[in-house]
């Protein structure tokens, strides 16, 4: 498991850093939410990669058909289903806050809001 074998995990790290950077560096509130989304997505991929076993089949038990390399672990996938739901809820709440911020301040740029909050 070297080099390309860890491809998934390189993708995870890349996405995580892209998301985290966007979250910190951007002043636009919607871009920040998108950064948060990318950041969370990287964790979804991390979990999904964990459950995968090379050559293994889907964890559905069929009598008489024993798979050669066993089954993939379904638990990380189920866990991340919960985390996806949470991510959707967070984005929805975040975006609705952005709408109300736009109504109250007339802008969604962080520095302009800061100016108005003084």
């Amino acid at each position, binding site marked *: 498991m070297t080099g390309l074998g860890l491809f998934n995990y390189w993708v995870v790290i890349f996405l995580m850093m892209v998301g*985290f950077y966007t*979250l910190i560096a951007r002043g636009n*509130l919607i871009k*920040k939410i998108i950064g*948060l989304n990318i*950041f*969370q997505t990287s*964790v979804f991929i*991390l*979990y999904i990669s*964990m459950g995968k076993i090379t050559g293994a089949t889907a964890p559905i038990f069929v009598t008489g058909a024993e798979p050669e390399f066993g089954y993939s672990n379904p*638990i*990380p996938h189920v*866990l991340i289903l*919960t*985390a996806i739901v*949470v991510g959707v*809820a*967070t984005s929805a*709440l*975040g975006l609705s*806050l*952005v709408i*109300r*911020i736009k109504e*109250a*301040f007339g802008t969604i740029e962080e520095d302009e*809001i800061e100016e108005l*909050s003084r």
Partner: protein
Amino acid sequence: MSHHLPVLLVVIPLVAAPFAALVNRPRVSWAIALGAAWWAFYAAFRLLAQVMSDGTIHYELGGWAAPYGIEYVVDPANAWVLLIVALIGAVVIPYARASVAREVSEDRIPLFYAAFILCMTGLLGIAVTGDVFNVFVFLEISSLSSYALIALGPDRRALTASYQYLIVGSVGATFIVIGIGLMYVMTGTLNMADLAEILPQLEANRTIPVAFTFLTVGITLKLALFPLHMWLPNAYTYAPSAVTAFIASTATKVAVYLLLRFFFTVFGAEFSFDVMQLDRILMPLALLAILTMSLVAIYQEDVKRLLAYSSVAQIGYIVLGISFASALGLTAGILHLFNHALMKGALFMAMGCVMYRVGSVQIDRMNGLGRAMPWTMAAFVGGGLSIIGVPLTVGFISKWYLIQAALEQGMWPVAAVVLAGSLLAVIYIWKVVEVAYFRDVDPEAGISEAPLSLLIPTWTLVIANFWFGINASATSGVAQRAAELLLGLAS
């Protein structure tokens, strides 16, 4: 029935929340919230009594045996936290009725109560569960609902405060998920007791320290340990008063409990403090929190913001107690969880009364309030004495234990910082007292005392501050049992 208490404690408020939203009448929603909160208080009290007499309770959800099913475990440490959350909830909801009617527009009140109960459910769930992924789920229930609650504040800056908290809180929660995932990869289990058994058997590897680091950063973001506290002052300042009183007294406390649970039960004190040397990070940060945040609090003009900075300093005391990793230090930290909830609850509720009558908590609007609102300001002084740590208040008891724990390890400079923190607290509390008692009332303002529905809950907490300050044997007994259990000293 009593067998199912651990799950009913969480499920009844969880089911009550949608009802509170659906009936859509402010008064009925409030009554539902009140019922749920009082039920939680009763159940938490019963659980604590049961745990203290019969020992740890294990409850298997749906009859699925651990470690495959989700397990709820109640031991002295989390029964204590459950009681803190439920107690504050049970006191704040009666208070919320008048306060929220003034600060939140009427069509949103039912949703306010629904979010409030959900937040309480989440916090109770984090404390009661024995499954690490379940912790994350409840953490998000409580966080999402608290973002919504904060955004309901009367000032438009409540929206940006809530947004800021949402971003930081989600990053913290995601870090926790990463930590949990890495632990799962190495152990194949999510059950806390099971993890505690498997983790020490693993060979030295890099994954577990990384998991530990992610969890530590994630949780310290949630508990607002200096310097990760940036979200907290705005959130506390602009949230509706009842929400501030509830969240300030419970949300950070539950996060501290998570820290305790992961460091001591899951990873074990040996790994956390000897291998990872966590105390070398926690102690300086805690000391910095106490000193700098108390200093910053002195310069605040908004009393809610002042109290928010003071909260970050008080969290410093709690974390300081934990960083000693001794029985006495942990007792001090766990005791201060409860004691700080009592004092900050009382102080923020007193400020809610001021908000109700004056419409602002700026210091320069408080001239002569000591005469115009004698009971409210007396409550503030009572809570203030407790923050300072005057004898006969709960604040004194926590500091007494904390200083003893510092001296036990020969760290007298640490004890000096604790005392310096108290002196700084004298200054920032005095700032308010001076304006309220030694300046003349503005006669045209026509400010009168807050209504009884606000004063009674506030004074309940103030009296509790003195009650448990004078008779501390019950609280310190539980805290000591919890500390011994976490350190693995108890049989």
